[in-house]
């Protein structure tokens, strides 16, 4: 036991339908005032519901940049939080404060605008394309405030805003940062409204959680917490709101939209959070519930709460979504801000909307739990929990405390090995030309090989298909069978640059052309970035950690870093780390309109473009004790990881080269070596002269010699996150000796065969638009 790894909250920022700052929102929430009105952002003609909780401020009032609304909401809340924390960002400290943002719908407002423009006028602005992916958000926030610590967008739909806080704490406890701007953001979108409308999951009236439970009301906003290590907060004389203790992330492995009716997945997340906090269920004073107001959520959550907390005679639970609406990827963080206020003020915000008759019904259902109906409750709150549950069966729970509390130290510094690899990629010989690029070929035989029936795979969009196949191939290669004995000890991290853009665009176009009532119930569940991870966990039966990170091209290597962080924090013994990005006509058209496609090859140095590729590459990463217990072969050791950032405009990399050099140096340091020990690099050259030039220049600075570089994109194209994970997979295969003693490499941009038989260390590095970089050191096992 020990609390030397204390994480504290030192700043709060909030914008939602209740107001444009924390004080206004808190005062409304504690006062039981709703932010739910009639929807203004778009037409709800022909829809059976028209309620929403929108932010009053137009985008141009939020910040001066030409960003998507989700980024602008986040900047507004982050600005308040940094000012509240009295955090002065300087060139000296900027590298130790990063940005982790939870998000669901990405740049949905910009996607709507782009395809509306195209539909109505026949042309749309290419600059809107860069606003579409969720990848942009954390990078835009980092750019606005000049923050150069690690960035990540956690895109696990309605649980994302809680998972982002959990990951920020894990990274601070691991010493990888002093502080994070952490939280979540989502704008009100026709995408989400039309989707939940199609699923008949919207309430016709304002939502009524734990009460009428006839659907959700969507909201928008951003909630940001400044989370710091205690030592750092004290050293700069910061005021401390409260402590963040443990958190828990789990997976239902049940259904792509509905929660498990038995609440097992929810309870697993809550159990992990309470246990990781060193607490008992009877210690908890308040729970800010997920409480969406759908029958399925509320029934499962009632069951979970009663099962875990019926011994607790002083528990209060409320759903602030009754006032803020369901803000999706921002929900968990908005609720975290309100929960921090509850802990500090000893006031519980209510669940509103109960009539006299409703109160009588509630009394029956509530048992010993106080659901704080209609009006606030004043009581001492020492320990509070905030819950978030999402599409894809992803659950997250986190504990806030008034005072420090000894946390169990689960840290695991065992070595980590790669024990399985699964790949789905195309090959250069199959380049379809005409800007279509390289695509993977999946047939029904690929599904049959893993026992995946048509009834399951027909539901999957392209992004989910390639993820499922690569994940199953990796599990098979690693000889992993999942059953009750290990289902909770295996987790998933998926990295992506662009997510399921084809499904998102298809859904959005139907809504633009046919109206908000024309959303597809079949397609909508696949428009969330974490659907692929959801399907994979459902089919494979994986019930542990499950997070999808959207962070440009480097997300494939970032997923490896993240998976290593989860293993080191003691959460799981096996992680599947995947990089996945699709290439369909939609993706090719968008990249084409950005002017980024060209028939070029790595290090040709003559074209500002690349051949688009696609794929999914999954790695099994496993702790040494697990490898020994299972007695399986090792490809290589993941000896060191690093994530760095140098804030530049999203969509560019120029000026951020120093962060790549830093990523290489830090990954080597993490592995206990120096760049001089690295034998070769599995690089990221894709044929774009700016990218390839930046890479060679940074390697020159980091290594100071002509180091051999392998270029996997030569064969698979710019498959973005998939190519990133492929770089590491290829390095691991080379080190394993399975590919022979020689390999084709580039030295100073010139191709030649190198003898790899004596190689001990290969580094894989990756770039992201906006200045995010990650690197891993693979060591011969």
């Amino acid at each position, binding site marked *: 036991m020990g609390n030397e790894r204390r994480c504290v909250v030192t700043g709060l920022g909030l914008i939602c339908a209740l107001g444009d700052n924390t004080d206004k929102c808190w005062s409304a929430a504690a006062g039981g005032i709703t932010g739910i009105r009639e929807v203004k952002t778009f037409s709800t003609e022909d829809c059976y519901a028209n309620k929403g909780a929108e932010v009053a401020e137009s985008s141009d009032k939020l910040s001066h940049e030409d960003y998507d609304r989700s980024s602008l909401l986040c900047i507004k809340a982050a600005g308040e939080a940094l000012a509240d924390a009295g955090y002065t960002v300087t060139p000296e400290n900027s590298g130790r404060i990063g940005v982790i943002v939870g998000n669901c719908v990405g740049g949905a407002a910009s996607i709507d605008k782009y395809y509306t423009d195209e539909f109505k006028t026949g042309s749309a602005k290419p600059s809107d394309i860069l606003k579409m992916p969720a990848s942009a958000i954390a990078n835009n926030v980092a750019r606005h405030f000049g923050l150069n610590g690690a960035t990540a967008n956690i895109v696990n739909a309605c649980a994302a805003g809680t998972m982002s806080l959990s990951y920020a704490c894990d990274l601070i406890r691991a010493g990888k940062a002093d502080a994070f701007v952490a939280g979540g953001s989502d704008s009100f979108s026709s995408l989400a409204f039309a989707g939940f409308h*199609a*699923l*008949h999951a919207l309430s016709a009236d304002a939502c009524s959680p734990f009460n009428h439970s006839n659907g959700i009301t969507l909201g928008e906003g951003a909630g940001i917490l400044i989370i710091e290590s205690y030592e750092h907060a004290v050293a700069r004389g910061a005021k401390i709101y409260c402590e963040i203790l443990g958190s828990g992330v789990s997976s239902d492995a049940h259904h792509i*939209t509905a929660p498990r009716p038995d609440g097992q997945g929810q309870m697993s997340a809550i159990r992990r959070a309470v246990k990781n906090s060193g607490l008992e269920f009877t210690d908890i004073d308040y729970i800010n519930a997920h409480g969406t107001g759908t029958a399925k959520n509320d029934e499962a959550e009632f069951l979970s709460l009663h099962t875990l907390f019926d011994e607790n005679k002083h528990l209060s639970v409320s759903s602030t979504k009754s006032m803020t609406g369901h803000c999706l990827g921002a929900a968990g963080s908005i609720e975290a801000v309100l929960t921090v206020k509850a802990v500090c003020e000893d006031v519980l915000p209510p669940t509103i909307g109960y009539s006299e008759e409703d109160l009588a019904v509630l009394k029956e259902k509530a048992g010993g739990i106080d659901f704080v109906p209609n009006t606030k409750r004043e009581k001492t709150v020492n320990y509070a929990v905030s819950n978030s549950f999402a599409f894809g069966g992803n659950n997250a729970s986190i504990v806030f405390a008034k005072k420090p509390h000894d946390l169990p130290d689960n840290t695991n510094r065992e070595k980590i090995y790669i024990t399985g690899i699964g790949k789905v990629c195309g090959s250069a010989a199959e380049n379809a030309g005409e800007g279509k690029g390289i695509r993977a070929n999946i047939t*029904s035989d690929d599904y049959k090989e893993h026992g995946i*029936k*048509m*009834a*399951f795979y*027909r*539901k*999957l969009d392209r992004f989910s298909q390639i993820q499922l196949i690569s994940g199953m191939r990796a599990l098979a290669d690693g000889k992993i069978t999942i059953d009750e004995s290990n289902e909770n000890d295996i987790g998933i991290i998926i990295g992506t640059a662009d997510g399921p853009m084809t499904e998102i665009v298809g859904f959005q176009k139907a809504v633009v052309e046919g109206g908000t009532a024309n959303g*597809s*119930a*079949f397609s909508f*569940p696949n428009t969330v970035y974490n659907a692929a991870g959801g399907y994979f966990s459902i089919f494979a039966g994986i019930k542990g950690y499950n997070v999808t990170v959207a962070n440009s091209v480097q997300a494939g290597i970032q997923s490896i870093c993240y998976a290593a962080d989860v293993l080191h924090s003691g959460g799981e013994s096996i992680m599947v780390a995947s990089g996945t990005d699709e290439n369909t006509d939609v993706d090719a058209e968008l990249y084409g309109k950005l002017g980024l496609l060209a028939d070029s090859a790595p290090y040709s140095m003559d074209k500002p473009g690349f051949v688009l590729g696609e794929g999914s590459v999954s790695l099994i990463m496993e702790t040494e004790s697990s490898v020994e217990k299972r007695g399986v072969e090792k490809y290589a050791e993941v000896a060191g990881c690093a994530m760095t950032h140098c804030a530049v405009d999203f969509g560019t990399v120029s000026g951020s080269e120093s962060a790549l050099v830093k990523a290489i140096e830090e990954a080597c340091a993490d592995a206990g070596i120096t760049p001089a020990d690295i034998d070769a690099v599995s690089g990221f050259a894709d044929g774009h002269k700016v990218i390839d030039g930046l890479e060679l220049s940074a390697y020159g600075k980091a290594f100071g010699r002509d180091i051999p570089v392998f270029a996997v994109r030569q064969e698979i194209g710019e498959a973005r996150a998939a190519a990133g994970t492929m770089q590491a997979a290829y390095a691991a295969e080379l080190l394993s000796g399975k590919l022979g003693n020689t390999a084709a490499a580039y030295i100073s941009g010139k191709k030649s065969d190198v003898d790899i038989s004596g190689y001990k260390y290969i580094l894989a590095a990756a770039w992201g638009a906006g200045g995010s970089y990650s690197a891993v050191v693979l060591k011969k096992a």
Partner: protein
Amino acid sequence: MNTEIAEKIKNMLVENLRIPADELEYTSELFGNDIGLDSIDSIEIIAGIDNLFGVQMTGAARENFQTIETLTKYVEEHMGE
């Protein structure tokens, strides 16, 4: 059975619900183990039938959704209502 209607329904199922065309007969059990449609798919079928034929199937009895054949029969009986 009106094969023109049946073919339109089949194409809608193939396109909207990604059912492989070669595995879909007019008599295939849509909600059985092989094709395995569920409640979300039935929402999509209702929307698709409405778009194609202007026939409302909201609240229609479950047996009408069993196969392309039964859907076709329902559409034939309710078109123009």
